[in-house]
């Protein structure tokens, strides 16, 4: 993926991955919704990170995944964006 991808584009891409491939969520789920409360568990998290890798070419080291970075699509996107840079 190009390094010029904006954070907003990244957020949308990760949001789509979460909604379409990882979690079974309804329309109330937003980019600010808490991922853990929405059902993200260890398997879903790894599947999400693999999908992000496939989409962006970047593997985010699991040691960077914390309660804070996994709070929402927004916080996770910020982390991925940081790694991309």
């Amino acid at each position, binding site marked *: 993926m190009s390094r010029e991808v904006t954070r907003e584009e990244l957020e949308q891409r990760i949001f789509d991955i979460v909604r379409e491939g*990882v979690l079974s969520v309804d329309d109330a789920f937003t980019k600010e919704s808490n991922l853990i409360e929405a*059902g993200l*568990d*260890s*398997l879903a*998290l*790894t599947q999400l990170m693999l999908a992000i890798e496939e989409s962006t070419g970047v593997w985010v080291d*699991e040691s960077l995944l914390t309660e804070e970075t*996994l709070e929402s699509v927004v916080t996770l996107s910020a982390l991925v964006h940081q790694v991309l840079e």
Partner: protein
Amino acid sequence: MPHSRNPEPLPLTGADCFLRAFEAEVRRTAKASHLSQLVLRLGPGFDGEAFRRLIDEVSRTNPIVRSPIRRRAVVGAPLYRLDLAAPAPGVRIEFHPAPAPRESASAPPLGAIPEEFFRRLNDRFDARRGKLLCFDVVPRGGAHPGTDIAMTWQHMLLDGTGSEFFVEHLAACSADPSREREIPITRAEGGASSPAVAELPGASGVRGRMAQTWHNYMQAMAAKPPASLAGPLRVVRQDLRYDELRLEGASGTAAMERAKKMAGFLTPMLFFLAVSLRAHQAVADRRGTSPASWVVPLPVNLRPKGSQREVFRTHVSLLWFQVTPEQTRDLAGLIEVLKAQRLAAIRNKLVEAGVAAMDFARYAPARVYSHMARRTFGGELASFFFAYTAEFAVAAESLCGAAILDAFHAPSVPASPGSALVFCLRGGDLDVVHVHQRGAVEDAELGVMRAQILHDLAGA
């Protein structure tokens, strides 16, 4: 997906059939059943009559808990024959007298586990007649008076997560008499046995290749075959007991924090798996033996994430880990090995391959699965069983008037490997439950395991 209200037969999931294979093996070789058990240790105030009414009502409205598991004919997948359910209530509840006090230095803080619970875990249930679920209720005296309850079931009926959902349902119903007793069952579409996060492709050829991938995965491990503490399968009567090691308050919280720090925020189970491997290695060291490898399965919850709360039937796949004795010497290094194996397995879609392989087992004779697995590993099945459950039944605070003080799982383990370690959290406290077959691990070896576990959990 529609919820069923009709007593139509319900297919066993592939994972159910995987467990059914071990039910057949245990019946044949150990004169027992492949059961699972969870223990609720309650405070004072338990209303036994209200509990009996509650179980009767839940049993009446959920025929699966009293349904025979049978095939319709010689061929075809086995079914929960809801249409042939035993008359309600059909779920046994046994109220036992208070046991005589027992002194034991290793007893858990709430006192010794009732002997009735061990007897029940070694009981023989008849799934073909719908004998799937049973409760034992024992008053508890001593310094912490209250009631202990064991819920024991045919392992197919509920998996670990489902059993906790079931307890939460019982707790909610006991708090709210108007709550709907029936638990919906989601019937999968398109002929699949159950809804799952890993939906299988429709083409049988694709599924066959996935199952072959799984087979190759297991075969590759046979190059360094595992050895359990009990040794290969032999005919021996099942005689399981378990010990509960409980880390309360700050020590439990510290162990959990250490697990997250060393293994990852959402993957603390790898820390606990590493601790378990090192505990078994400590026994092997004491014996002066050295297995070619340790091979351990890790159950993976397959429920679609975020919306479904499937209670009944087993919705898991298995990830397998293989490490050498040398790799167990350093805890941090061992965790890195486990993390790498887990990631590689998920990346290579082995979770899905496991589902495909187990799905094929639905159509095979019950014994085939266990026979194939043991043949692969020279009579062994695994080095030991392992499970980690996150916070136990979060929504259940009390049951029939009594607070739930402690709760943990105690699943049975076949005489080979003869040892299972289960880690459960409840209110920040950590329960480590070691289920073992009599004779597989000597008393002195249990002490060695316990010391090694405490050492690794505390980081001393």
